[in-house]
């Protein structure tokens, strides 16, 4: 098993608050890995550190793809995206005033090159690139199940569709590692089943997925491995069933009494 992402001794402090303490883990190519933990455990901070939006206080983040090994800790988010890590956000962050297809086209930004002069003069290169951008954005929209809805305004779509659009935009950057921050939040059971199916299809195309999720049905249904953090500290790691029954995990979620009760029972 080849690792795609390796995190070594990662620390992140916000002033006096230790949001992440000594986090170490590896993600293998082609896995769907879940990252769970109670609210405020540091899951999103960890995402932000990997995506370059937060700078880790200490530690190393190593990303391996296409035979390249890059240390991405402290790198700028646009560089991390160009290297092949894409993400979605806990509170959906779409380009609200733009159409659905423009949202996905912006995802193509880091894989395309035309500039001001190309745009004004409409060089042959620019026209071909623009055509390719349109084609691939249609492809990604179809992949997430939003075919033919490119002309709608992003903010006017239903919630579940906005989630899928955000995934399409992330996929448009052609990532090797896709990080989804609570993609099933606010979805009904039908929508989350579709989402699980979508995640499997993304993985089958060769993209590794790291998933933050509170919906345990989704986590248990789709993840091969689950990692648990609490108060910024590493708590447990392993197969979903194992983690689910781990007293430490139950304690973190439900308190000491609950952990004792489950053990006694």
């Amino acid at each position: 098993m080849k690792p795609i992402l390796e995190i070594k001794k990662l620390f992140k402090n916000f002033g006096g608050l230790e949001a992440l303490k000594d986090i170490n883990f590896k993600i293998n190519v082609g896995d769907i890995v879940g990252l769970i933990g109670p609210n405020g455990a540091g899951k999103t901070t960890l995402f932000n550190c990997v995506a370059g939006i937060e700078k880790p206080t200490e530690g190393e983040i190593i990303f391996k793809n296409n035979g390249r090994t890059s240390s991405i800790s402290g790198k700028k988010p646009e560089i991390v995206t160009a290297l092949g890590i894409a993400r979605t956000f806990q509170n959906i962050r779409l380009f609200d005033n733009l159409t659905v297809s423009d949202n996905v086209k912006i995802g193509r930004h880091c894989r395309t090159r035309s500039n001001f002069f190309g745009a004004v003069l409409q060089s042959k290169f620019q026209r071909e690139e623009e055509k390719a951008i349109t084609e691939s954005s249609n492809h990604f929209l179809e992949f997430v199940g939003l075919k033919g809805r490119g002309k709608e305004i992003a903010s006017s779509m239903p919630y579940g569709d906005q989630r899928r659009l955000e995934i399409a935009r992330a996929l448009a950057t052609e990532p090797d590692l896709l990080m989804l921050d609570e993609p099933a939040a606010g979805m009904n059971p039908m929508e989350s089943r579709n989402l699980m199916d979508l995640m499997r299809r993304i993985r089958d195309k060769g993209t590794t997925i790291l998933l933050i999720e509170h919906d345990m049905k989704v986590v248990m249904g789709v993840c091969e491995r689950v990692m648990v953090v609490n108060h910024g500290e590493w708590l447990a790691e392993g197969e979903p069933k194992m983690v689910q029954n781990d007293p430490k995990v139950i304690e973190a979620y439900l308190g000491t009494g609950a952990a004792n009760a489950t053990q006694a029972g």
Partner: protein
Amino acid sequence: MVKLKLKNMDKGAKLRIGLLILALILPLMPFVSNYILHIVILIYLYMILSLGLNIVPGFNGLLDLGYVGFYGIGAYTSGLLTYHFGLSYWIIIPLAFINGAIWGILLGAPTLRLTGDYFAIVTFGFSELVVLFLSNEIWLTRGPLGLPGIDVVSIDLSLFGGPKWEFIGEIPYYYLAIIMVLITLFVMNRIQDSRLGRAWFAIRDDEVAAVSCGINLLTYKVIAFAISAAFGAVGGSFFARWVTFLSPDMFKFWESFLILCMIVLGGMGNIWGVMIGAFVLVSLSEVLREILPLLGLPVQGRFLAFGFIMVIMMRYRPAGLLPIRAVAAQMKAGRVKRKKTKVSVGIKA
């Protein structure tokens, strides 16, 4: 040959072509005096300026209060090059464009890291600096005395044994201004549908999501600022050769504010909207200049009227006369959000 298939065109295209034809034949109308032509040229000039400014607040969502600084730089570039070297206007246009862009980069590169209000304050300071420079560096600009007697625009074919035409009266400037508006509009239109334009819209809508799509914020903001400044400078270069007189107090902060009002009134981010904004405010200003004295009010009262209009607009139509598409669609659907917050999207579920 170009065949205009009128039947196949949508309403908007027909309207645009109709307006263009109207603009082209306007000087031939019997009732059109030189005064009216002068005002219409002024409208065209402000259309160029507001299209240029629109890039920064309209496309990128950054408040720019110092646009007039670039307008002034362009005007003095044009004026001084004509005054000292007698350069042809056709060479000055690209030089003014480049000079504007250079100053845009010089100001933008260090300051575009600032966010929101702080950036606006810096641009405001810059435009004041430009005015101070123009008034005090007398060796270069003659200071408050101004720069009189700048040559008019001419088409000089004497190099090829042809004649030399000088632009006398308003009509040649009228057509030159139309051409410049059309070129500006053409450039804006193409940018809007390009990778560059989309990157700007992404920055306007959500900076964090934009960087996550691989957009380098600083680079794209600086590009926006430079292009915006370049169009401001081209507008200034036209102004200098048209009125043939420059003085530093033509580039006071009020001008920046007026252009900003035009794009807010017309619809920030919509290139057709900002042109309507320029049309409305310039013509209103001239109409009020005629009417107010008749009512026994001072001419300065028109600024009061502008303020009143802006207040009414902000209350009833905050997105402008011709808002960008998304907002227009929301208004149609009866779901006008007066102030959109990012959080509301997350809570909606």
